[in-house]
């Protein structure tokens, strides 16, 4: 049975019958991109899915001739098994020029990245509050960071039109090593300094004063695709190593990602969650003296006779708040270590043994 396209899916936005009931609130099901005209034999025969719009892969021999691809391949220290044609495909975002694009590789890379970044954060910082956890994932693998990564890999964007290339007698092979995301009509657009015209994608991403430019999204997509390509050729282990080397080796300052609205109340709730029976008390530890020209107070947060945190400020209130915030940070940024003092193993490591803690979730206040 061949089904043309997938437009016949019954579970669309309006009343669909399922488990004998009607969905009043619509459940959005992923829609296929009709552009590719995907066909399949059986809906669950994953191997049979095929895009029938004509596209072809760049021949490996051609790809190996492109100096930009060879240079990028060597710069990233990719294994020999990694085909240059896949690398070239990872850099292609354009779907209607006949060459295979990076959609699949991008999805693959995105899933790999999401898993390994999340796993790292969940094991190393098990108590990060969910908003901060999400933002931390964004800090590692959001568009902005991946754009920087792509730039630092020396990926060049293809910004000259066919005509310009012809006029400058540029070698055609160079194109295959560049990041292709602009259609020819967009390349020849006249631009004015200081004025940015947003395209359809960009205007959809506006948030406040910022938007995601299609250039940065393209760079991010190529980075994800290169990781996806590494998985297809060399397997998951090497993709994991690549992610650790290039993405998780970057620094994120978790301490500066917290914005507390009611820190003291939050701390009380956390202590309640931890079943600490004794009450919290915030007490002055030391001061320079109220009449000194620049008074300094040191305050501690105590539960029983255990000190949770300490803060320094130029007024008693300031030092109290700092003390509470510091104790909250010391709770949230806890990193477990194993019994011999080494960082704990991650679920994807060989010989994994569970030694850390499972985050117990945030409290509502």
């Amino acid at each position, binding site marked *: 049975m061949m089904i043309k396209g997938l437009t016949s899916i019954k579970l669309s936005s309006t009343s669909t019958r399922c488990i004998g009931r009607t969905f009043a609130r619509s459940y959005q099901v992923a829609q296929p991109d009709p552009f590719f005209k995907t066909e399949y034999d059986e809906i669950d025969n994953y191997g049979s899915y095929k895009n029938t719009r004509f596209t072809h892969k760049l021949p490996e021999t051609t790809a190996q001739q492109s100096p*930009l691809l060879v*240079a990028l391949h060597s710069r990233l220290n990719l294994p020999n098994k990694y085909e240059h044609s896949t690398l070239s495909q990872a850099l292609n975002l354009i779907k209607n020029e006949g060459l295979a694009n990076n959609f699949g590789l991008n999805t693959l890379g995105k899933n790999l990245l999401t898993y390994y970044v999340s796993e790292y954060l969940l094991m190393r910082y098990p108590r990060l509050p969910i908003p901060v956890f999400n933002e931390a994932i964004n800090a590692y693998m*959001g568009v902005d960071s991946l754009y920087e990564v792509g730039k*630092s890999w020396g990926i060049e964007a293809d910004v000259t039109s066919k005509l310009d290339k012809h006029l400058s007698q540029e070698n055609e092979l160079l194109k295959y090593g560049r990041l292709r995301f602009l259609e020819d009509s967009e390349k020849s657009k006249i631009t004015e300094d200081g004025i940015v015209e947003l395209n359809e994608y960009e205007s959809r991403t506006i948030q406040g004063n910022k938007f995601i430019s299609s250039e940065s999204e393209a760079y991010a997509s190529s980075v994800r695709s290169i990781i996806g390509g590494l998985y297809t050729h060399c397997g998951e282990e090497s993709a994991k190593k690549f992610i650790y*080397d290039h993405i998780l080796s970057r620094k994120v*300052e978790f301490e500066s990602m*917290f*914005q507390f609205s*009611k820190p003291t109340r939050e701390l009380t709730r956390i202590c309640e969650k931890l079943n600490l029976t004794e009450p919290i008390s915030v007490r002055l530890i030391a001061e320079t003296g109220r009449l000194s020209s620049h008074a300094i107070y040191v305050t501690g947060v105590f539960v029983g006779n255990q000190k949770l945190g300490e803060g320094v400020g130029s007024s008693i209130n300031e030092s109290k708040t700092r003390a509470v915030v510091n104790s909250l940070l010391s709770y949230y940024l806890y990193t477990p270590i194993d019994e011999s003092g080494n960082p704990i193993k991650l679920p994807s490591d060989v010989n994994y043994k569970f030694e850390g803690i499972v985050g117990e979730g945030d409290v509502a206040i």
Partner: protein
Amino acid sequence: MPVKAIPKVSIARNGVGTLVVPCNKIQIQYCNWGGSSQGVRDLLTNGQLNNFASNNKNIFIEVIKKSGHPTATFHYSNKDKVNEIDIKNLKFNEVLKKINEYSQRSGNELFKWNHKVLSINQSTRGIWSPMHEAKSDRYKI
């Protein structure tokens, strides 16, 4: 919501985890006729540039034939920096030396650092505080 998150972008630390050499492209421009390009022409004919290229596969080398004094342009992935230098009247080994030297840079402006160690990490030990001395040892105003 008890706590809100402030968006951040991770900070690049080239050399931690892995190193991607910042210099990714070298354009060598020479003239087929002028005497000042003699060194570059020698470099191209005696195969030394080929050697350099095969030893540094991560760098894309483009040779451009154009009249005028020869130049070498180095492109760095570090903030898209470009550095163009003059290589006129240099012997081939001097040109090679220049190429070798500039390809090992990161594209940053030259700067004499007077600090021996640059760090973006918080200090491990923290700052000394007189307030944490035992009360008997504290200085009294």
